[in-house]
């Protein structure tokens, strides 16, 4: 693999800001998203959901609904394959299929309000809605538990009789809501605290927040009489949808074709299935295509969110500010089924810092909430909120500049992470220095305002990807990608292919293929697409270049070593040959004579995704009368390796920062006493709108290109949601005059703290 620095070769396409290949489709309404498909004879599917937080399903009577004219099929969990078992790779985590199935249609018990119980397919939406009302479900309501620490208490209602805490020896004799206990650490923490000259400690809480993609989940499923089926859906991975549906419905993978629609945002929340197996089960029963689209209320009640958390953190430091030890307990809500990202919280909590002695304990805790899904850097933002707040306390205690304190403790290449990896190709120090030197940080804080700083880390991942490069007969190129384009990845794929082939970007088109048209790929998640799928694109393009050179050599009857490829043209360096250069177009036009069509497909398992680091600085003010916080200036700096399309990289930083600001200030799942969600709408679940935010300045740090990627790319999408919670929190704490330990820092909470 070539060096990420490209040996000083001047790049012509990578680093530019061309219009994305799908740009026109997306500004003209032509792009087809999940709910935009229509098939002849298509039925409308609707889902009957639990009105209770926790209940046993005594009986389901569908007979009245079945008699309603226009109702074509009804399914319950009995229509799924009860033997669905095993695991499926799902973005950053493995998903236990039995639980994914039970989340799509409840089996025996409903575990949260909105849990799907049955589904109907009918000729008209109105008929489907009426049929739902006719399905009679008798519940035995059970006591429920919502909060994470209440769920851990010995007297808590237990969701799963067969859940015995993993990671505890001896195995507990009693079932509980604690699915797993993760322990991580190194060094002698007790000794570090004994030796400490300064300590800080605190308890921090964050609320469950939703990914908030604007496009609700949607799919169309069509069962063929021969069992061969097609699913059109919006997801973060067509192969993932295929694998999960196949397991749940006990079908061979080859009988399911998943066609990826454009995806209207996901942020990790579309790395699982909710509707697809249900729609296909309905279609299997009646032989007609079935479309299901979630309402926004359903999205809030039954998809996502990410964990709320309770964390206790303690730092031990010297009086010069060196952190010598830390301990932390993290309790994460998993929702109704196990699988919170608490292990990732433990791994990332101190990943920015070189701390000798560490002790972390994480608890994965189920409660009567919707099952959590991945959300941008899953598990990291809440842990960073606690740690970066504690570090801010330390800076205050020591009277140190918050950047200097972080610089003193920052990881450098060669450091060991708590999970065993060695830090490589990192630019945290440069990122901190860039913030310190930024116009924002050098400007004094405005009157009545306060400033907060925080850092953040994400691993970034590689993994399995496929891509193909096809040379058209006229010398243009089609790149076939295996990953849904969630934020402009078609552009980066096309750009990397153009760079490698020496073509102008306009000659390269990029398409996202269905599961039958390209090799397997992992999901669009973990900030892996530009890195891993990009690597496959570049290797396929390199293979095409090699083939083009071979064909030129064959035409010229010279040695292939005498063929140069530059700017999309082959030139002969053999002095004995008097031949004219051959363009891509010339070679492609005569491909039949040199071996047939020119194309290459690469499938690989990309290794070497370098971690990314971000540092954010936030200025804000608070209205003393209402407690409303307004962010007035914000700068995000990030170690990005090399930005393939800088505008879309900036966009990742800006979007992540905005989501983090929402998480810090307003967003939360609010539950009433009966365990029901009180704010399942965009009106009451308050995400940032344009008038809530300032411009978000970005600084892209490109001093450490990733040498394991042909153009130096690191994942960039997840890091930027990690620092904002504490960057905002640290600033709010300054104005309030005390440490803000609980998110969101909503106006009511801020007012209450200010008036204490």
């Amino acid at each position: 693999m070539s060096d990420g620095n490209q040996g000083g070769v001047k790049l012509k396409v990578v680093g530019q800001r061309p219009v994305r290949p799908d740009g026109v489709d997306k500004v003209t309404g032509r792009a087809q998203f999940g709910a935009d498909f229509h098939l002849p004879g298509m039925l409308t599917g609707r889902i009957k959901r639990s009105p209770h937080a926790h209940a046993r399903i005594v009986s389901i009577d569908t007979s009245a609904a079945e008699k309603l004219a226009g109702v074509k099929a009804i399914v319950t969990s009995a229509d799924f394959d009860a033997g669905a078992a095993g695991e499926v790779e799902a973005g950053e985590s493995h998903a236990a299929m039995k639980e994914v199935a039970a989340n799509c249609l409840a089996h025996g018990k409903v575990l949260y309000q909105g849990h799907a119980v049955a589904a109907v397919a009918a000729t008209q939406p109105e008929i489907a809605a009426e049929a739902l009302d006719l399905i009679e479900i008798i519940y035995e309501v059970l006591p429920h538990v919502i909060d994470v620490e209440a769920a851990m208490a010995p007297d808590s209602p237990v969701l799963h009789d067969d859940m015995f805490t993993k990671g505890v020896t001896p195995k507990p004799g009693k079932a509980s809501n604690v699915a797993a206990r993760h322990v991580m650490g190194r060094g002698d923490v007790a000794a570090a605290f004994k030796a400490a000259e300064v300590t800080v400690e605190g308890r921090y809480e964050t609320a469950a927040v939703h990914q908030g993609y604007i496009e609700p989940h949607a799919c169309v499923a069509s069962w063929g009489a021969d069992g061969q089926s097609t699913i059109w859906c919006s997801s973060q991975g067509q192969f993932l949808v295929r694998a999960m549906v196949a397991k749940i419905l006990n079908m061979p993978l080859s009988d399911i074709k998943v066609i990826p629609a454009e995806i209207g945002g996901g942020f990790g929340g579309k790395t699982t299935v909710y509707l697809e197996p249900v729609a296909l089960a309905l279609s299997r029963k009646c032989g007609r295509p079935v479309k299901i689209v979630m309402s926004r209320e359903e999205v809030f009640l039954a998809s996502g969110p990410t964990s709320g958390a309770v964390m206790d953190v303690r730092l031990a430091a010297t009086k010069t500010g060196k952190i010598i030890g830390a301990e932390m307990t993290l309790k994460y809500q998993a929702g109704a089924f196990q699988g919170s990202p608490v292990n990732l919280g433990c791994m990332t909590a101190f990943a920015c810092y070189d701390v000798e002695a560490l002790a972390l304990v994480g608890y994965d805790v189920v409660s009567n909430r919707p099952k959590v899904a991945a959300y941008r850097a899953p598990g990291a933002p809440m842990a960073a909120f606690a740690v970066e707040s504690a570090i801010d306390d330390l800076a205050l205690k020591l009277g140190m500049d918050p950047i200097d304190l972080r610089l003193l403790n920052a990881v450098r290449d060669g450091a060991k992470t708590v999970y065993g990896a060695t830090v490589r190709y990192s630019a945290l120090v440069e990122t901190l220095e860039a913030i310190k030197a930024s116009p924002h940080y050098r400007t004094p804080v405005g009157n009545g305002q306060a400033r907060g700083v925080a850092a953040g880390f994400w691993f970034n991942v590689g993994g399995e990807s496929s891509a193909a490069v096809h040379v058209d007969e006229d010398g243009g190129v089609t790149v076939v990608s295996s990953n849904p384009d969630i934020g402009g990845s078609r552009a980066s794929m096309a750009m990397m292919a153009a760079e490698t082939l020496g073509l102008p970007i306009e000659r390269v088109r990029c398409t996202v293929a269905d599961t039958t048209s390209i090799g397997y790929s992992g999901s669009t998640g973990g900030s892996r697409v530009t890195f891993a799928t990009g690597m496959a694109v570049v290797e396929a393009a390199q293979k095409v270049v090699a083939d083009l050179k071979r064909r030129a050599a064959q035409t010229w009857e010279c040695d292939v070593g005498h063929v140069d490829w530059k700017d999309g043209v082959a030139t002969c360096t053999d002095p004995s040959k008097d031949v004219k250069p051959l363009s891509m177009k010339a070679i492609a036009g005569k491909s039949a004579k040199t071996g047939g069509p020119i194309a290459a497909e690469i499938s690989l398992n990309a290794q070497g995704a370098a971690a990314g680091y971000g540092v954010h600085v936030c200025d804000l003010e608070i209205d003393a009368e209402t407690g409303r916080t307004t962010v007035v200036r914000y700068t995000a700096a990030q170690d990005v390796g090399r930005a393939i399309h800088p505008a879309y990289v900036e966009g990742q930083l800006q979007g992540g920062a905005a989501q983090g600001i929402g998480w810090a200030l307003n967003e939360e799942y609010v539950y009433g006493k009966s365990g029901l969600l009180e704010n399942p709408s965009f009106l009451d679940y308050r995400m940032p709108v344009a008038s809530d935010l300032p411009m978000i300045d970005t600084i892209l740090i490109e001093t450490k290109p990733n040498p394991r990627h042909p153009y130096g790319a690191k994942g960039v999408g997840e890091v930027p949601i990690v620092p904002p919670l504490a960057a905002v929190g640290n600033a709010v704490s300054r104005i309030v005059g005390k440490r803000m330990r609980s998110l969101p820092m909503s106006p009511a909470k801020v007012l209450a703290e200010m008036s204490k």
Partner: protein
Amino acid sequence: MSRMVVNATVNGEPVEFLAGGGQSLLDALRDELRLTGSKEGCGTGDCGACSVIVDGRLVCACLMLAPEAEGARIETIEGLADNGHLHPLQHQCIEQAALQCGFCTPGLLMASKALLERNPDPTETEVRYWLAGNMCRCTGYDKVVRAVMDAAADLRQAEKPR
């Protein structure tokens, strides 16, 4: 279910479609006329993904009943480009990477068009408050606001007498 015939003008063309009494204009546009560029993000008028212009007024198509469109002049995202030529708002949107997933984009563009028809030279604050009814979860709005302001400048330039 009885349905009524609705006659309206959509993107300059007369259309006739059948609408149920409780059907939203958004569902009629999407399901009857197959104009799926307008999106449903919430169905409650909070996200603005279904923004269209009806008789010169910006509305959430999910909040208007389809039969109310009788005789109305409706503009949707499908009519924003002029005979295949992008509107300056569309042009600036893709030039400045003011979209990521693109789902909110049609609504944002229609809302922006309505803004610039009223206020050809908006300040950043005016753009931000006008677009406060159009949620975007991907971009943090920075590039969206810049694109709208630059499109406004393009439009002003185009209107100047030469």
